[in-house]
């Protein structure tokens, strides 16, 4: 058990180091930092001196270590576009993305599981069939089209919800959150639905197919033979085993919510890190791009790690296997 956890954390660190290296390489090899720092009249001697002072003459591995050390302190350099330290800019944008991701993740999991169970139990019902057909279209629709059409329906035609921006925010422990104010919450509904819809259909289809599989298995038949009621079988016995793979996939999907937030945030002009990243790509703002890569890499690796460990905790069979295999 312990060996597995340590090995898994080691792997995660390796991935993070690799991502960090890509991020460092972007920072280092694209664009000339000296060009940005030195003025027009700089002499070659100035240049050499600055090179020495910034440690640009050190071997690449040493520079990489220094880069990582600076990154740990949240020092990612200065944005070419807005002229502010990248760490500060990202930190000020992060709450917006996180609250949006949290709400849409919640919507996706909640409705995904409910619809999944429903369509599995009432397999041939009319409503279940309708949900399944709609979900097929939902999977094929690109996220940005969903967003645009939600704006068209609910903001332009019905006028119920705002079409862009974040509304008012309220401050909690110095963090600005939109979900706490009415106007902020209203602005959040459309982006959150857009972002969550795709993940919801995925979770729903997964829950449905897992549930159907489990309902066919022997132990469910025995439970029926014992005379247990539908409710006890579906929710007491079947659901538990359904959720094991669902947790893995859902966990991994949470990561992609952060990634797809880039699209949603652009459609709704939601001022999060995704919008920041797209603007950075547009302006070739390397420090912001490399910092974003590192941040998202860290988030993804952490999520994957937690999912793996959780999987291990949930499914006792795996523990037995690992213990038997001598921590292989």
């Amino acid at each position, binding site marked *: 058990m312990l060996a597995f956890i340590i090995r898994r954390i080691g792997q995660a660190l390796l*991935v993070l180091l*690799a991502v960090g290296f890509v991020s460092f390489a*972007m920072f280092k090899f694209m664009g000339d930092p000296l060009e940005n720092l030195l003025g027009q009249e700089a002499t070659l001697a100035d240049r050499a001196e600055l090179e020495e002072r910034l440690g640009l003459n050190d071997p690449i591995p040493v520079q990489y270590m220094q880069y990582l050390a600076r990154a740990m302190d949240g020092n990612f350099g200065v944005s070419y576009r807005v002229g502010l330290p990248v760490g500060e800019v990202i930190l000020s944008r992060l709450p917006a993305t996180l609250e949006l991701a949290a709400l849409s993740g919640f919507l996706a999991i909640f409705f995904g599981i409910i619809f999944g169970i429903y369509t599995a139990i009432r397999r041939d019902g009319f409503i279940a069939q309708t949900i399944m057909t709609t979900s097929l279209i939902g999977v*094929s629709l690109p996220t940005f089209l969903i967003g645009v059409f939600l704006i068209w329906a609910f903001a332009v035609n019905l006028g119920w919800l705002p079409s862009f921006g974040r509304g008012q925010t309220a401050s909690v422990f110095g963090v600005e959150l939109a979900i706490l104010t009415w106007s902020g919450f209203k602005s959040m509904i459309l982006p959150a639905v857009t972002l969550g819809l795709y993940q919801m259909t995925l979770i729903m289809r997964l829950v449905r197919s897992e549930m159907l599989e489990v309902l066919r298995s022997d132990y469910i038949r025995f439970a029926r033979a014992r005379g247990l009621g539908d409710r006890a079988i579906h929710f007491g016995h079947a659901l538990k085993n359904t959720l094991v793979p669902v947790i893995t996939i859902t966990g991994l999907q949470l990561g992609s919510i952060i990634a797809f937030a880039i699209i949603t945030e652009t459609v709704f002009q939601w001022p999060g890190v995704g919008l920041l990243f*797209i603007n950075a790509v547009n302006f*070739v703002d390397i420090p912001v791009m490399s910092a974003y890569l590192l941040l998202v890499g860290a988030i993804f690796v952490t999520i994957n790690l937690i999912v793996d460990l959780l999987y291990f905790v949930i499914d006792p069979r795996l523990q037995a296997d690992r213990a038997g295999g001598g921590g292989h």
Partner: protein
Amino acid sequence: MADTQPKGAAPRPVFSGAVSPKSRLQRWADSDIWYSFKRSPVTIVATTVFFMLIAGALLAPLLSPYTPFDPGSLNLMNGFTEPMAANAFTGDYFLLGTDDQGRDVLSTILFGLRISLFVGITAVLFAMTLGITLGLIAGYIGGWLDGLIMRIADIQLTFPSIMVAMLLYGIGKGLIPPALRDEMAIWVLIVSIGLSEWVQFARTVRGATLVEREKEYVQAAHLIGLSKWSIMLRHILPNVAGPILVIATISLALAIIAEATLSFLGVGAPKTQPSLGTLINVGRQFILSGEWWILLFPSLTLLALALSVNLLGDWLRDVLNPKLR
């Protein structure tokens, strides 16, 4: 690819004595693939739509009623003409209306479809070539190369491919001089989408190669002294073609959507060479003022394209994957 068809679809048992040699056409007509195709109306519709869209893209210069990217032929008075109505000032008729510049929406869609399909198909071909090569190397040669390739694949798989494509696009944009950026944008787009999707190909080919490598025909080929590359390309590759085809179709849908998404976000096809995504982005600016057709028709085209490719991919997967039957 036609030679390898029987592998994926063993000829259905035919009662009329299988002694006489059959023409390729007959073999195809007897195959499982054709049988399953005939019995699936959804697939027939999807195929028809897909080929109509391809034809529309190929014949765009002939089919378009107007020349949307020739500034000389544009008339600003034609701007915002409603679909299926003549313009009030000039009397010109536009089936799907015009945008703010007086460009015919139907013509821009046909040309946009061209860009979308070109980028999508080229990107998938690129991803396929790269993925197959690396997959064969990893599976057949193995050793530290295998470890290296698969670790890179693992790391890349940690991130959603659309994000990888965005990042690569940003890097690509940074590497080419600003003056060439618009000109090169399409190629940067193709390379970034291609690089973001090679992993699926490589993993599948590697897995299949590991299985094929142990078979007798490969050992026989090795014994008669064929070179590694000859065995990989001429003997193993045709036998793993089925799964590759399935992944290629699914990747095509993904690549088309990725291209549309990037262009929609303004980091893909430039305004001078608009793809469907760019057109949707342009159309979005007019929904608040009521010109819905500039947005709706490109969106429907993209939807039809993505949906038909997806349905084709689903069908191919069911037919070529004997495990699911």
